């Protein structure tokens, strides 16, 4: 069905269309519309689910853990401080191998209070064992949420998936949305370690290091095995519903001499910048990082690279730039831009490409001070 929706509404609609059974959530700007929409959907009976209006994000993830442990489909949504408040439970849910799906409306962290888009919240949850996908359009927010359930619940993966959408820049903008009848695209959840009264076991009991090591390795194995599962889920999605997705989204990439790389909405904005630069005679192309975890390094050999990070690792650098540097051996021009919802236009992005200096770091808007 063709309609129009905000990014938030698209996520909520995907949760309904995925027949989620338990949703536990706590409101936070700019995610609120997701939980309002789901609460209304449940109240109206169009989604047969339990909606648990928990008293905190820590409890939101805790309740999802309790529900998911019984072997049913669960979802939550959060943002910024909510995400970092549930950090402990993010580790717990991945460690417990529970296929929980969560939408995170990317937002800056205080102080001072700032509700604008920034990736520091989810990037700081990088090592929790959650898969992370970053989306750039309302349609993609919907599609990625549906695919997330299929990927998370695959028995070769059994890890939680976080769908990241830029606060306001995507959560609150309205675009066209085509919904689908998921049919059997998401198979029924069959959690091998669901709580079984007739086979009582201890979950998460005291574990010696020898076994702990095996469990940690098994998380990594699930993460590695998720790559073909993601590729398959995206291929099947394209075959059934006509929209194609890849781990990395390429734009005028093949013959490009300089590649600009970013995540989220900036990753779409830069396509306009690429067109502009091509008109100027600069052979630019772009690469949008969709899956940040698992991180499958792209082949950047022989290209100049400009990376825009809407995040920062203090004392180190732009996170995406440095991950690419480490995994691809490139020497990117690292641009820090868009923090706290800073407006970054295609003109600005074209400017970054024009001023590129390999190995240098540029803080957009404050460069006089660094």
């Amino acid at each position, binding site marked *: 069905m063709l309609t129009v929706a905000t990014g938030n509404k698209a996520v909520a609609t995907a949760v309904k269309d995925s027949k989620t*059974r*338990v949703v*536990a959530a706590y409101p936070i700007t700019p995610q609120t519309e997701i939980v309002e929409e789901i609460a209304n959907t449940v109240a109206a009976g169009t989604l*047969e*689910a*339990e909606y*648990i*209006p*928990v*008293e*905190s994000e*820590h*409890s*939101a993830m*805790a*309740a*999802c*853990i*309790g*529900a*998911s*442990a*019984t072997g*049913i489909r*669960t979802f939550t949504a959060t943002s910024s401080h909510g995400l970092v408040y549930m950090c*402990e*439970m993010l580790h*717990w849910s991945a460690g417990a191998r529970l296929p929980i799906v969560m939408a995170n409306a990317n937002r800056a962290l205080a102080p001072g209070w700032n509700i604008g888009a920034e990736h520091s919240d989810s990037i700081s949850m990088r090592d929790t064992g959650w898969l992370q996908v970053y989306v750039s359009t309302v349609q993609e927010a919907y599609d990625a949420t549906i695919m997330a359930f299929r990927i998370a619940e695959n028995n070769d993966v059994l890890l939680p998936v976080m769908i990241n959408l830029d606060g306001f820049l995507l959560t609150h903008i309205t675009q066209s949305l085509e919904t689908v009848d998921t049919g059997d695209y998401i198979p029924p959840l069959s959690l091998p370690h669901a*709580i*079984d*009264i007739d086979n*009582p*076991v*201890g*979950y*998460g*009991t*005291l*574990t*010696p290091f020898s*076994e702990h090591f095996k469990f940690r390795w098994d998380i990594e194995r699930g993460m590695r095995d998720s790559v073909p599962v993601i590729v398959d889920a995206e291929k099947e999605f394209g075959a059934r519903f006509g929209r194609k997705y890849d781990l990395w989204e390429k734009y005028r990439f093949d013959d490009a001499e300089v590649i600009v790389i970013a995540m989220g909405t900036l990753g779409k904005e830069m396509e306009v910048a690429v067109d502009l630069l091509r008109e100027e005679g600069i052979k630019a192309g772009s690469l949008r990082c969709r899956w940040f975890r698992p991180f499958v390094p792209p082949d950047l050999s022989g290209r100049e690279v400009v990376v825009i990070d809407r995040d920062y690792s203090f004392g180190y650098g732009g996170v995406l730039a440095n991950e690419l540097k480490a995994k691809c051996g490139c020497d990117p021009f690292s641009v820090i831009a868009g923090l706290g919802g800073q407006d970054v236009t295609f003109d600005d992005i074209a400017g970054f490409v024009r001023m590129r200096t390999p190995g240098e770091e540029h803080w957009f808007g404050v460069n006089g001070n660094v």
Partner: protein
Amino acid sequence: MMIYIQRIAMTELPKEEYILKCTSACAGCSDTLSLRYALKAAGHDTVLVVPACCTSVIQGLYPNTAFNVPVYNVAFASAAAVASGMSAAFRTMGRKTNVICWAGDGGTVDIGIQALSGAFERGADILYICYDNEAYGNTGMQRSGATPLGALTTTTPAGKPVFKKDLDGIVEAHNPPYMATACSAYPKDLFNKVKKALSIEGPKFIHILAPCPPGWRYPADQTIAVGRMAVKTGMWILYEREYGELSVSAPSKAAFRKPVPVGEYLGMQGRFRSIDNGKISLLQQAADKNMESFRKEAECTC
């Protein structure tokens, strides 16, 4: 509305054991004792949700477990929230499985109180049981919000300067359909209370006083005697509230008639060895006041 549960004798308790022999509990541990009777009351169709506490250790080391029901171990602050999610999930499946939080005092009165309050306000269909040994036992007896006035712990070397937090008052303010206190020294009373709690839908709460030999500094064979003395002195009152209506349990009714001085209870335990007369007097006054208020309320409602 009072709920009638057939009270049974010790010899009539179910023979099924859900705590297997050879747990890693300390000698004289009243946590294991309480859990044994609670699980006899709950039966087979039960899941325990356990935050960090002594029970996390007592289960044994992976891949073994000494408990014969599924046990979901969870993060310290999260027990009531995990349980409410689990209970909601069972409801969507049409299952009646008992979801019981089994948490220590630290995981309840301190770090877990927000999740507990949230779950009770929402009316989650869970039974939350706090076994209270009045300190962080698992980490070596640091003070908790449940540590009583004057007690020595590893973080109150001069004795705790303030009173124990009124957990029951906090829970009562949520108007749960059922709440009760119990003590490991009265296992039949505990069994009956767990049985009754599980017959009621909604959030239920049982607060068990759980004496702890290494933490309270008394010989391991005195666990029952110490628990009984807590009740006899009025330092611990056994009661139930069904839909708010108070019913004082028999051992406390007897204690109200002729309470033993609190000094008898304090004197049995090394943790009170340095308590001064001023604090003993404050504890005596608090116990007297508490007994008086329960006695009055019980008389009014009888």
